[in-house]
């Protein structure tokens, strides 16, 4: 097939700076979230209070979306043999619109300033829409639509819907014209952004990285073929139920979606337990934590349909965002950043390098993992106990500062000339 001079440049990885700028920004917003808790968040009990909305987006946009967008720049060549056009302009542009937009958003929501809300929405929506369309146009050109690519496409469609809904609810706030359907549209925004975009993207990435990084068995063919389709269609059904006030329909689809995600959690854990290479590193602990938290979050959210206690939903959302999504993404960063550093140096001809597992070191990631667990517990505690404000703020700050330190350590070698000379004996 294609050889040396087929002119095929599609398989070229982007320069390290492109994904790395997103990866490093994520824990910085995590640090900001910690400071924000210290200053302004005495409790997480009141959903949709201004401070909780602000804090939520430091995590969801500042951390989750930031890494997931950066990772897409990296993964596209590997999973689809495709690449973003104009990636050298697109990546810094999306990155700065999103970072700047998020800061304005935080100010706009927290101080309830209309103009800032609108400016932030325009900046961030522009970044997301550019990202969605350029990724989709690269993905649909892939020669071979693998289950991972299919999951990416559905997750991007969900993100698109989530952003349209976000625009609507933000404009409602900015014009203080909150309609009766606001709550339903808000729930749909949460559904499509968390379950749809974050959840399906993680599923698609798992299809690829669980067998690769952990030498585990592949996911079942049936699951790979149908899972994301079922989730996406059920989400449309659920949203329809929400907006038309049809509780039966809503509940039916909610149970359906939950089952597909729980199946994913259980399958992933069983694949990891039976993996061939039994080496245990921090990233494995992150995967186990993430999968169990995913299952707990879904069960709590289902239980809420029965008990009707809104606090259950709040706890479920915290566990989904901080316990599931942030865990898995942090674990992934600990694999991907050292791998990319190793790869780019190898590609430049450096030999005798430390293996990728030695670049950060197990001790540092283990300490950070425990900080993460404590910060998750303290965020859940903050729903019930106001006295935890300082504790929660400090541990969220420390945990993210530690991630930042570890990522810098994992990629430093690439940037330090001294490191390069030392290696190249």
């Amino acid at each position, binding site marked *: 097939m294609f050889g040396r001079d087929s002119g095929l440049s599609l398989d070229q990885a982007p320069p390290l700076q492109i994904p790395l700028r997103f990866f490093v920004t994520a824990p910085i917003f995590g640090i900001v979230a910690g400071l924000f808790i210290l200053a302004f968040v005495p409790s997480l009990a009141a959903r949709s209070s201004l401070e909780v909305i602000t804090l939520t987006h430091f995590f969801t946009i500042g951390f989750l979306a930031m890494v997931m967008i950066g990772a897409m720049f990296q993964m596209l*060549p590997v999973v689809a043999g495709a690449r973003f056009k104009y990636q050298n302009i697109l990546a810094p542009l999306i990155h700065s619109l999103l970072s700047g937009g998020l800061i304005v958003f935080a100010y706009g929501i927290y101080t309830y300033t209309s103009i800032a809300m609108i400016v932030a929405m325009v900046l961030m929506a522009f970044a997301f829409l550019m990202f969605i369309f350029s990724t989709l146009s690269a993905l649909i050109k892939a020669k071979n639509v693998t289950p991972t690519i299919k999951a990416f496409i559905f997750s991007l469609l969900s993100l698109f819907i989530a952003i349209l809904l976000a625009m609507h609810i933000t404009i409602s706030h900015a014009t203080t014209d909150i309609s009766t359907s606001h709550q339903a549209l808000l729930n749909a925004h949460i559904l499509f952004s968390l379950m749809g975009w974050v959840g399906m993207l993680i599923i698609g990435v798992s299809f690829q990285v669980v067998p690769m990084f952990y*030498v585990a068995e592949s996911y079942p063919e049936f699951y790979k073929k149908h899972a994301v389709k079922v989730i996406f269609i059920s989400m449309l059904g659920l949203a329809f139920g929400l907006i038309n006030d049809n509780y039966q329909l809503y509940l039916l689809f909610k149970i359906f979606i939950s089952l597909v995600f729980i199946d994913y959690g259980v399958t992933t854990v069983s694949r990891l337990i039976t993996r061939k290479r039994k080496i245990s590193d921090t990233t494995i602990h992150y995967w186990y934590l993430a999968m169990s938290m995913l299952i707990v979050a879904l069960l709590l959210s289902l239980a809420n349909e029965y008990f009707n206690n809104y606090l259950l939903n709040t706890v479920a959302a915290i566990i989904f965002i901080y316990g599931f999504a942030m865990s898995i993404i942090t674990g992934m960063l600990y694999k991907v950043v050292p791998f990319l550093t190793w*790869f780019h140096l190898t590609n430049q001809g450096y030999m005798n390098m430390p293996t990728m597992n030695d670049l950060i070191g197990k001790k540092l990631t283990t300490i950070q993992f425990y900080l993460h667990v404590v910060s998750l517990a303290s965020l859940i505690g903050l729903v019930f106990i106001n006295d935890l404000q300082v504790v929660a703020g400090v541990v969220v700050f420390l945990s993210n500062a530690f991630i930042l330190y570890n990522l810098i350590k994992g990629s430093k070698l690439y940037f330090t000339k001294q490191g390069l000379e030392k290696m190249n004996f």
Partner: protein
Amino acid sequence: MKEIDVRDYPPCEPMEMALEAASALKSNDKVKIIHKQIPYPLFEVLKNRGFSYTLEELDTDLFHIIIKKGS
């Protein structure tokens, strides 16, 4: 032709094994790497180091990459 099965190794070992085998090649030799996915990053390094390769897709999770020196 020498064959190296890298399917049971996590990154970055498959690439290390493939590059090691490639750099040990004599001028007309070839080496076959058995992989469970298409190793795009490896292709890039091979090209940069002056090797050429062919890719055979045998199944959705079975690929043979045959590497030789020069073009």
